[in-house]
């Protein structure tokens, strides 16, 4: 079943066409890689899927529901969560508070209910805290829950960001360069971690990544963007031997062969 369909979306900033005619049909449970040289428009695609930018042409469907013009938080509530290329945690909040912000969108109690600490709210708050603790356990941060998020080492911040995204209970998770700045050992951990959460939370994942080991290692399908145009699509082997891709990455074809 198709979970997300980006139907030929295009966006322009001034005279620059950042992404042109992008088409993506995601099946439920897929793990798709999105690669391309710097400035190819990968993050812009994420921003359109999550509602940060509105495409000027084309439309986006999530579970057959059109989400092209919806607000960012509405889209998140429907089940698309993301992480950011340059980590965007709430640095002055504690680790567990970061995750609990992700639970907030499911809160049913009204503001007054929350202020007067009525039983309905307290119950929900406890439930949210439990859920957040579970997620932190998932990313091995349960011992650090009262630490400030900004004080964590880089790799743990990445994991916390993923936990926070999972707290919104997404069906589709968009990871923007999760392995950036990690050493080979951490990267390896991350690969198995991504596969683990995909299985556990029954996620569909789209992954932007520059580390080819990660992309080729865990993605079944890969899309290559260059100057906003999708230049290739296929499984890792096909992509590795696609002359267009080699040209985009290396410029000269002869050297590679």
């Amino acid at each position, binding site marked *: 079943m198709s979970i997300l369909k980006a139907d030929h979306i295009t966006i322009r900033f001034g005279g620059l066409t950042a992404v042109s005619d992008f088409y993506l049909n995601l099946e439920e449970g897929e793990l798709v890689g999105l690669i391309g040289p710097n400035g190819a428009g990968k993050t812009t695609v994420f921003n359109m899927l*999550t509602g*940060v930018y509105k495409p000027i042409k084309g439309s986006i469907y999530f579970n057959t529901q059109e989400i092209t013009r919806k*607000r*960012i*938080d509405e889209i*998140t*509530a429907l089940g698309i*969560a*993301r992480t*950011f290329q340059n980590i*965007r*945690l*709430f*640095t*002055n*909040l504690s680790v567990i*508070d*970061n995750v*609990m*912000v*992700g*639970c*907030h*969108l499911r*809160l049913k*109690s009204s*503001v007054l209910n*929350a*202020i*007067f*600490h009525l039983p309905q*709210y307290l119950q*929900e*708050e406890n439930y*949210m805290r439990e859920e957040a603790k579970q997620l932190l356990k998932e990313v091995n941060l349960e011992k650090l829950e009262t630490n400030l998020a900004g004080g964590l080492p880089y790799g743990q911040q990445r994991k916390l960001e993923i936990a*926070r*995204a999972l*707290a*919104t209970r997404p069906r589709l998770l968009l990871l923007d360069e999760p392995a950036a700045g990690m050493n080979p050992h951490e990267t390896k951990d991350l690969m198995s971690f991504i596969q683990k959460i995909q299985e556990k939370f029954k996620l569909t994942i789209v992954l932007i990544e520059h580390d080819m080991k990660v992309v080729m290692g865990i993605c079944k399908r890969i899309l290559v963007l260059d100057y906003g145009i999708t230049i290739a699509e296929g499984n890792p082997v096909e992509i590795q031997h696609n002359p267009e891709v080699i040209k985009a990455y290396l410029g000269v074809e002869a050297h590679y062969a």
Partner: protein
Amino acid sequence: MKKVKKKSDYLLLKMVTILGVITFIFIAQRSFDAYIIRILNLCGIYVILGVSLNLINGFTGQFSLGHAGFMSIGAYVSALLYMSPELKEVNYFITPIIWPLSVIQIPFVFSLIIAGLVSAGVGFLVGAPCLRLKGDYLAIVTFGFSEIIRVLFCNLQSITNGPLGLKGLPSYTNLWWTWGVAIITIWFIKNLINSSYGRALKSIREDEVAAEAMGVNLFYHKVLSFVVGAFFAGIAGALLGSLVMTIDPNTFSFFMTFQIIIIVIVGGLGSITGTVIVGTAFAILMEVLRSVESPMSFFGLNIPGIPGMRMLIFSILLMIVILFFHQGLMGNKECSWEWLYHKVSRSKKEVEEGS
């Protein structure tokens, strides 16, 4: 084994403190002289103002300069409701007051609540379009709002009596009102920011883009904090009106907002404790520092009284705090019972280990 202290263990401590405060107010109201009571009243009002502005500026991270406008609305709405028809007739001797307002008189407590609600309503109307703006732009627009209110009140003669203001207001404000409302404000806003909604507000302060991507409805939460802040600012304005017994549109100038901003920044953006401490200290210093404005002789040098010298000193204090305590006195720390308990028990333990 470490014994984990539960919330209920602090209940006794809380009760004792509340009883202590009530006793203090009781004694103060009866036996202190009028001048000191007035200063204590101002302390309470500054605390309400500071805490409500801290909710908007410190916890939600929306830099608003509109607090004087909300105070003005609160002061006028309540005054128009609790003044007696005869008093209104005396006040409006140039342009008569319009009909329904000329005969209305309701008890002080209801006028306070209505003042807060009207102020909150205006907060919603102003906040809804303005809170799409960020940083400096929001500051300018909210500043503009408070100026608009001032000019409007100067010219709506048949409602506000224009620049003549309202004089001889009945003096209802006493320590029970100011400190009572201050405690309710602190309790209300503390509970708000410690709830899930409060986490959402803080996440907006930390990173708007990420907060929205985590499903926080930016518009709803920003307006929420603005409306709650405006509500308490309106009530504080009403209390101030009845305390000084005379209001005119220029009472609530930008100067007023500036004072509250000083309290919030010096106390620490995002710390209710800091705001309470500095709000109280500010009200006291405002009086104590009156001496620098009076003429004095200094090593044979005669200095004439300079009105406004107090603010110069406050500006210097503000600069010192910003230079040496970047986060204000308290940063975003709070002083809670748990925190106090840990401090005390730790120092006790250190003493025991030391001996």
